[in-house]
C-alpha cells in the first residue's frame, strides 16, 4: 500500500488517458476502434477519476514527487480538496463528453480519427495533471500542453481559413496568458529560486509584490477563462472546434483557469487585500454582462453558447472576487458562502454547457448547419436531442430547480452579507453589482429562450431539416449522463455544498455551517434563507399533475388538430417567424453603446432592398487592433536595420566596436 493511494490512482488514471491517446495513434485511421473502443474507455477512466476525486475530497492531502522534470525541480504532484473538486468536475463532465464522442466521431473531421483521439485524450490528461501539479514547472508544462492539445483539436477541421484563424488567435492569447502566469510564479517565489508550491506558499510577499502576483494571475488565468478584455478568442475558438471539443473546452478547460486562479489567490498568496476582490468582482461582472449581451445578438448557435460561457465564467469570477473581499475583512463564513457559490456555478456550468454543446454537435451532424437562420423545428425530427437540449437550456437559463439556479441563488445570498463589510464605499457598490448579476441572470434566460426556440421550436427554416436524423445510442448515453448530473446538481444542493465544504475550509477557512437537513439548502439559518429544489419540484409537479387529472375528470381530454391560427393569416411560411437577428434586436437597441454596429439600410431606390446588421466587439477595435498596428509599426521601423547595403552593415559593425570600446574604457 503506497503512502498516497488516491494521488497515485489519479496519476495512474491520467496516465491511462495518455495510453489511450497513444493507442489512438496506433489505430490511426480505424474509426471503428477509436470511436467504439477508445472513447468509451476514456469515459470509463473519467468516471473512475471522478470517483477517486470524490474519495479524495474528504481525505487529507497527498503528495508525491516523480523523478522527471527539471534537475532540481522534478515534477511535484499533490492532491488536496481543491484539486479533488476540480478533478471530479473533469472526470464527470469528461466522461459524458467522451461517451458522446464515441458516437460523434463517425466521420472524418479533417484530422484522422486516431490522431483526434490522441489529441483528445492528451487534452484530458493534461487537464488532470494541471490540477495535480504542485510546482510551477509541472504546472506550466501541463498548462501549455493542454493549450496545445486543444489548439490542434480546435483546428481539426483545418481546411477552413476561418477555423485556422480562430485557432491561431486562441493559441496566441493562451500563450500570452501563460506568460503572465509564469511571471506570476516568478513573483511568488520571491527570489528563493525554489518553484515548488510548498515554497511559494511559505513566502511572505510585500503588499506590492503580492498585488503584482495577483494581477498577473488574474490576467493569465483570465486569458484562459475569457475575462474581458482577453475574451476575444473564446467566441471564435469554441465554435470552430468539433462539438465534443467545444463541450470540453467550455465545460472543463475554462474551469482549469478557475482552478488556477483559486490556487494562487487563496492558496499560494499569503493574505488577501480587499481591492483584489473588488478588481476580480469588477472584471467578472463586466465579463458576465458583455458575454450575455453578446450572446443575445448572435446568429450562430455555437457562437451563442460560447458567449454564454463568457458570461458564466464572469459570474464565477464575480463570486470569487466577492469571496476574496469577504476573506480580506476576515468574514470567513461569508467568504465560504461566496466561494461555494462560485464553485457550484463552475460545477453546474461544466455539465449543462457540455450538454448544450453536445446537442449542437448532434444538430450539426444531422443538418450540417450552424447558423440559427437556417435551423428550426428540430424538436419534432430529433426528439432525443431536443429534450436533452431543453434540460440544458433550462439549466443554463438559471431556472429552478436545476443546477444553474442553485449556484445563482447562493451567489445572490452571499451578496446580502455585504452590508456587514466595514467599508462604506464597497457597501454602496456591491448592491449595484448584485443588481447587475440579477440582470445578467435574467438575460441568460432571454438568451436560452432564443437559442432553444430558434433551433428546436417553430417551423424548419430549410427544406432539408425535416430529413434530419436523431442522435445515436452513444450520443444519447452521453447526453443522458450529462442531464442526470445537471439534474442531480440542481436537486441535491445540500449534498453538493457538503461535498464542497472541505474545499472552502481549505481556501476560506470556513464552510457553510449547516448544510440543512437532507433536501433543504440552508446557508445560514432557516429564518434567514432556505431553498429546497426537490420540494419545489415536487410542488410544481403536484400542481401540474393535479391540474391535469382534475381537468380531465371534471371536463374532458378532447383535442383537435387544425392548421395554426396566427390571427387567421392563411399563407404562413417559415420565414415569417422571428429570426435570430430579430430576436436579438431589442437587446441590440437597449445595449447599443456596448456594440460596434454596422448597419446596411436600404434606400427608397434600391432595386433589391436589403437590410443587414453586423455586430462587432468594441474591445477588438479598441485594444487588439491598436496593439497589432503598434507591433507592425515597430516591425517596420526595425526593418530598416536590414536594408541590404553592405556598407551600412559594415558601419554597424564599426559603430558597435566604437560604442563597446567607449563603454569598456569609460
Amino acid at each position, binding site marked *: 500500500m503506497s503512502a498516497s493511494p488516491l494521488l497515485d490512482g489519479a496519476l495512474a488514471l491520467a496516465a491511462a488517458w495518455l495510453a489511450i491517446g497513444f493507442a489512438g495513434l496506433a489505430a490511426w485511421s480505424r474509426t471503428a476502434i477509436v470511436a467504439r473502443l477508445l472513447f468509451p474507455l476514456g469515459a470509463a477512466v473519467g468516471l473512475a477519476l471522478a470517483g477517486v476525486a470524490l474519495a479524495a475530497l474528504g481525505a487529507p492531502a497527498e503528495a508525491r514527487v516523480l523523478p522527471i522534470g527539471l534537475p532540481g525541480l522534478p515534477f511535484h504532484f499533490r492532491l488536496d480538496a481543491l484539486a479533488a473538486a476540480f478533478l471530479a468536475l473533469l472526470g464527470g463532465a469528461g466522461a459524458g463528453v467522451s461517451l458522446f464522442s464515441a458516437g460523434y466521431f463517425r466521420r472524418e473531421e479533417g484530422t484522422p480519427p486516431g490522431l483526434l483521439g490522441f489529441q483528445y485524450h492528451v487534452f484530458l490528461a493534461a487537464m488532470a495533471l494541471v490540477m495535480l501539479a504542485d510546482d510551477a514547472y509541472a504546472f506550466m508544462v501541463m498548462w501549455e500542453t493542454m493549450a496545445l492539445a486543444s489548439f490542434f483539436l480546435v483546428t481539426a477541421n483545418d481546411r477552413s481559413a476561418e477555423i485556422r484563424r480562430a485557432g491561431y488567435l486562441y493559441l496566441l492569447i493562451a500563450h500570452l496568458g501563460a506568460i503572465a502566469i509564469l511571471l506570476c510564479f516568478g513573483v511568488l517565489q520571491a527570489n528563493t529560486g525554489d518553484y515548488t508550491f510548498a515554497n511559494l506558499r511559505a513566502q511572505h510577499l510585500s503588499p506590492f509584490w503580492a498585488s503584482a502576483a495577483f494581477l498577473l494571475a488574474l490576467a493569465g488565468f483570465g486569458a484562459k477563462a475569457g475575462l474581458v478584455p482577453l475574451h476575444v478568442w473564446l467566441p471564435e475558438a469554441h465554435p470552430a472546434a468539433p462539438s465534443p471539443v467545444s463541450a470540453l473546452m467550455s465545460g472543463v478547460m475554462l474551469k482549469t483557469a478557475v482552478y488556477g486562479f483559486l490556487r494562487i489567490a487563496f492558496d499560494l498568496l499569503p493574505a488577501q487585500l480587499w481591492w483584489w476582490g473588488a478588481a476580480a468582482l469588477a472584471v467578472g461582472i463586466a465579463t458576465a454582462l458583455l458575454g450575455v449581451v453578446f450572446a443575445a445578438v448572435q446568429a450562430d448557435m455555437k457562437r451563442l453558447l460560447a458567449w454564454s460561457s463568457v458570461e458564466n465564467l464572469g459570474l464565477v469570477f464575480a463570486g470569487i472576487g466577492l469571496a476574496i473581499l469577504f476573506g480580506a475583512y476576515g468574514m470567513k463564513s461569508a467568504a465560504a458562502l461566496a466561494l461555494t457559490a462560485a464553485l457550484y456555478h463552475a460545477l453546474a456550468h461544466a455539465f449543462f454547457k457540455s450538454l448544450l454543446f453536445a446537442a449542437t454537435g448532434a444538430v450539426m451532424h444531422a443538418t450540417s448547419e450552424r447558423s440559427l437562420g437556417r435551423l428550426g423545428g428540430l*424538436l419534432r425530427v430529433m426528439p432525443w436531442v431536443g429534450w436533452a437540449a431543453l434540460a440544458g437550456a433550462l439549466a443554463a437559463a438559471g431556472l*429552478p430547480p436545476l443546477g444553474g439556479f442553485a449556484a445563482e441563488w447562493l451567489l445572490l445570498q452571499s451578496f446580502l452579507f455585504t452590508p456587514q463589510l466595514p467599508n462604506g464605499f464597497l457597501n454602496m457598490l456591491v448592491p449595484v453589482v448584485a443588481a447587475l448579476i440579477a440582470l445578467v441572470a435574467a438575460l441568460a434566460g432571454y438568451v436560452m429562450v*432564443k437559442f432553444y*426556440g430558434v433551433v428546436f421550436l417553430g417551423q424548419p427554416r430549410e427544406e432539408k431539416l425535416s430529413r434530419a436524423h436523431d442522435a445515436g445510442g452513444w450520443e444519447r448515453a452521453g447526453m443522458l449522463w450529462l442531464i442526470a448530473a445537471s439534474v442531480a446538481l440542481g436537486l441535491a444542493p445540500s449534498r453538493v455544498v457538503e461535498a464542497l465544504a472541505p474545499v472552502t475550509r481549505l481556501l476560506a477557512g470556513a464552510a457553510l455551517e449547516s448544510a440543512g437537513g437532507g433536501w433543504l439548502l440552508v446557508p445560514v439559518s432557516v429564518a434567514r434563507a432556505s431553498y429546497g429544489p426537490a420540494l419545489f419540484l415536487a410542488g410544481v409537479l403536484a400542481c401540474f399533475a393535479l391540474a391535469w387529472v382534475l381537468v380531465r375528470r371534471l371536463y374532458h381530454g378532447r383535442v383537435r388538430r387544425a392548421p395554426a*391560427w396566427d390571427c387567421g*393569416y392563411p399563407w404562413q411560411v417559415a420565414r415569417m417567424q422571428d429570426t435570430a437577428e430579430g430576436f436579438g434586436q431589442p437587446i441590440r437597441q437597449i445595449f447599443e453603446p456596448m456594440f460596434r454596429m454596422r448597419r446596411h439600410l436600404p434606400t427608397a431606390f434600391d432595386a433589391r432592398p436589403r437590410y443587414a446588421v453586423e455586430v462587432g466587439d468594441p474591445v477588438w477595435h479598441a485594444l487588439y487592433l491598436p496593439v497589432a498596428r503598434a507591433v507592425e509599426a515597430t516591425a517596420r521601423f526595425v526593418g530598416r536595420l536590414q536594408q541590404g547595403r553592405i556598407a551600412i552593415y559594415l558601419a554597424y559593425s564599426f559603430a558597435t566596436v566604437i560604442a563597446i570600446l567607449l563603454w569598456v574604457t569609460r
Partner: protein
Amino acid sequence: MSLPGAASQLLEIALALAIAPLFAGWVAQCRAWLQNRSGPGIAQPYRLLHKLFHKDSVLAERASPLFRAAPYVVFGCMTLACGIVPTVSTDLPLAPAADAIALVGLFALARVFISLAAMDVGTAFGSLGARREMLVGFLAEPALLMVFFTAALVTGSTSLTTIVTTLSSQELLIRPSLALAAVALVMVALAENARVPVDNPATHLELTMIHEALILECSGRHLALYEWAAALKLFAYACIGIALFAPWGIASAHAPSALLFALPALVGKLALAGFLVALLETLSAKMRVFRVPEYLGMAFLLAVIAMLVKILLGAGPQ
C-alpha cells in the same frame, strides 16, 4: 410539518385558486366603473374559465408535446407561487422550499415555458410575443429581485415568512427605501401582468400585444389554464405587495385562530389593491413597445435606489 401548518398551507392554495379569478374580475369591474361602463360583473372570469374548459382544444398541426405541457407547467408554477407568498398565515410548510429569490425564479420558469410554447408552432405572432415577453421579463425580473433585496436588507432574511413576520411585528415607520421599492414593485407588477401602460389585456391589436400574442394558438382547456394562471399571477403580485408593504394582520404560526381575522383583512386589502390597479390603468395610456425598456429600466433603477437608500441610511430610520 405540523398539522395546522399543513392546513393553512392547503387553505392558502385553495384560497388563491378560488379568489384569483375573482380578483381579476374585480379589477376589470373597477376599470369598467372608472371608465363609466357597467362592466361584466366580477364573476365573469369564472364563466369564462368554465366555458373554455368545456370546449375542445384545437391544436396546431405542428404543435409538439412541449406546447401541450406548457399550460400545466405555467399553471403549476403560479399555484406554487401563491402557495409560497404568505397571505393569510406565515406558518407555511412549503415556504422553506423557496424564498424570495426562488420565487423570482419560479416566475421566470413560467415565463420561459410560456414563451417556448409560443415559439413552438412557428407563427409570426407567436415568436413576436415570445420575444416581447422575454424582453419585459429580463428587465422586470431583476427589478423584482431588487425589491425583494431591499426588503431582505431591512429584515435580514430572504425568506418571505421571516420578512412578513419581521415587518408586521415592527411598529409603523416611514421607510423611504420601502416606499421606493413599493413604487418599483407596482411598476413591475403592471408590466408583468400585461396591464396598461405596457400591455392591454383587452385588445388583440397586433402591433402592441404581448401576452395575447403568446397564447394566440391556444384554445379550450389550455387557454383556460393560461387565463387562470394569469389571474393567479396577478393575485400573487398583489399578495407580494401586501406581504411586503402592508403585512399587518397575517396570522403567525402560534395563533391559528388569527386566521379568522386574517381572512377579512386580506379581502379588504385585495379589494383596495385591485381598485388601485384599475385606477392606475385608467389614468395612464398604453405606451409603444419601444418605450417599454425605458419604463422597466426606470423600475429597475428605482429598486436599486431603494436598496442604496437602505444602505445609506442604514443607521437611521430605514
